[in-house]
């Protein structure tokens, strides 16, 4: 498909200016004018409409097809939440309004959404309080680690390490490093859990925090959590819960009860809002009581008369982490989703997410080698090791699935599983959809035995075939030039 720049035709326009009926302003002084042409294409309205409509037809989304991208949780976002965020009372409120004198009383509804969402998340997770400000999960992680640093500093403790298991999300060590900590990585034992002996060896009174994802990226619930948390607390370290996979635990277990002090939630994964990477996202951070004073400003507080206000006067706060109050529309969607499903509905969502993943695991483990042969939580991980013997790699399986109309599962992650295929069906998919997907996966396993080149040559039905990923990475060419 041609780029919009390549459709340029000199002199073509999609609009016409009205003749000015006021005196013309003086032109800008020369030093403020750009030296070169902007190179924006000249096109008619129809050119533009056709271009973007055709482009959108090449788009792959969860609204068009099954999207079992493990660890990313690409679940369907119900459309009723779009209607709610478009309500004028929310959509047209100026974000400065609650900061103006008397303005807070004109924005009570919006403040209530922030206040109540925080309360609901605290109830679901067993944490004491939440900040709704972080703009996506990774931003939440950084905020959480900054809270941990503020806590230790306040206690006069110098701590320089953060412990993460090697099955953690890549963002965990990255967040710790950006906040100024050195990262200690603990390997996974043969059962798929963080190696406790190695953890004991590495834990000391210079460790600021232990970051765990639970269930982890292998889709496994770590039964040693309580022991890990007790040991960390004994050493004066705090426990950080990466809430990426909270969707598996809703109503079943609460990070606060498991001994975690700080956590973030990726709103899109558990509460059906847009994905942080595609945005706008939401990554609220919850804390236990001892960290509440350090939360970012402003906080939404309830006054004695029951009205809500913004509180900026918190001298221990780490300060601002985002403009205004976070992605308000995303928070509102999560709030609406929680109220719509209710307690029973949220618990059912977690149960079906886990059931769907186990259904895929049980249906496919005869054909693909499971990374760990035990029940999984919200996602299941296979290795294409059996298929590799015939020259069919995880990448080939992914390409073949594209031909069949599926977004591939995550491949080559987690890094500790060779030729990993990580499938996360989510609770939003029906048994029929899963059965069709499983049938295609079984067909791939059969082809890998009987006719491997069928798989290794895929995709053949897509607008472009195999792209040269190596060349793209070695010689990135990201900008159109005339």
């Amino acid at each position: 498909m041609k780029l919009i720049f390549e459709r340029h035709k000199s002199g073509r326009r999609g609009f016409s200016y009205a003749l000015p009926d006021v005196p013309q302003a003086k032109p800008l002084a020369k030093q403020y004018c750009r030296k070169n042409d902007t190179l924006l294409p000249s096109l008619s309205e129809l050119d533009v409409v056709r271009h973007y409509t055709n482009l959108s037809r090449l788009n792959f989304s969860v609204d068009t097809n099954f999207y079992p991208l493990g660890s990313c949780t690409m679940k369907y976002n119900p459309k009723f939440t779009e209607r709610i965020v478009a309500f004028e009372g929310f959509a047209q409120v100026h974000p400065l309004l609650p900061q103006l004198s008397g303005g807070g009383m004109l924005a009570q509804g919006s403040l209530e959404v922030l206040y109540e969402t925080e309360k609901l998340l605290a109830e679901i997770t067993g944490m004491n309080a939440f900040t709704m400000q972080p703009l996506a999960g990774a931003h939440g992680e950084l905020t959480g680690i900054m809270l941990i640093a503020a806590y230790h500093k306040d206690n006069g403790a110098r701590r320089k390490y953060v412990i993460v298991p090697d099955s953690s999300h890549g963002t965990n060590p990255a967040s710790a490093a950006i906040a100024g900590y050195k990262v200690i990585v603990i390997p996974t034992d043969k059962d798929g859990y963080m190696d406790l002996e190695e953890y004991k060896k590495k834990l000391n009174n210079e460790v600021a925090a232990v970051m765990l994802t639970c269930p982890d990226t292998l889709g496994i619930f770590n039964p040693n959590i309580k022991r890990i948390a007790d040991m960390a607390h004994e050493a004066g370290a705090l426990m950080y819960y990466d809430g990426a996979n909270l969707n598996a635990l809703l109503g079943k277990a609460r990070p606060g009860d498991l001994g975690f002090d700080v956590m973030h939630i990726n709103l899109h994964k558990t509460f059906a809002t847009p994905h942080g990477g595609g945005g706008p996202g939401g990554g609220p951070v919850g804390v236990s009581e001892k960290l509440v004073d350090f939360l970012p400003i402003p906080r939404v507080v309830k006054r004695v008369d029951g009205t809500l206000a913004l509180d900026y006067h918190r001298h221990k706060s780490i300060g601002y982490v985002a403009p205004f109050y976070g992605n308000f529309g995303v928070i509102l969607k999560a709030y609406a989703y929680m109220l719509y499903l209710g307690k029973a509905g949220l618990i059912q969502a977690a149960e079906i997410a886990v059931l769907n993943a186990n259904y895929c695991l049980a249906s496919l483990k005869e054909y693909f080698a499971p990374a760990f042969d035990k029940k999984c939580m919200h996602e299941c991980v296979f290795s294409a090791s059996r298929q590799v013997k015939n020259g069919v790699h995880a990448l080939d399986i992914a390409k073949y699935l594209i031909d069949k109309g599926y977004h591939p599962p995550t491949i080559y992650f987690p890094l500790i599983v060779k030729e990993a295929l990580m499938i996360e069906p989510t609770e939003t998919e029906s048994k029929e959809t899963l059965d069709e997907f499983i049938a295609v996966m079984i067909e791939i396993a059969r082809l890998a035995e009987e006719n491997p080149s069928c798989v290794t040559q895929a995709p053949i039905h897509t607008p472009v075939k195999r792209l040269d990923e190596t060349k793209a990475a070695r010689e990135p060419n990201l900008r159109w030039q005339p």
Partner: protein
Amino acid sequence: MNIPQNLFYTKDHEWARIEGKTAYVGITDYAQESLGDITFVQLPKAGDTLRQSEFCATVESVKAASDVYSPFSGKVLSVNQEPCEHPELINESPYEKGYFFIMELSSEAEKAKLMDAQSYRSYVEGLSK
């Protein structure tokens, strides 16, 4: 799988070739094979002091970015700029043209913590079963 006899190996798939008081360092054939086409490498600077088993470089492939750990303690004497310009050299020639750097050894005795070719081969075979 190419595992030369005269080298020392780590369980994280780095190799070291001792020459007098110095050592050449790189990643093994197994490492480059598992990573796939390498697209980027970030090496230490000459003069950097490294500690055994601690982070010293990053390699990025189409599949993943991985940390590289130093097989020995000591100071980096010189860095091989070739793979920075042409990362494919690490895939094509992991033990020769694709070496990472040359370091001065603080203590040759640290080799007791490394594997020889035979033990590394059985270690790698254990991984891929």
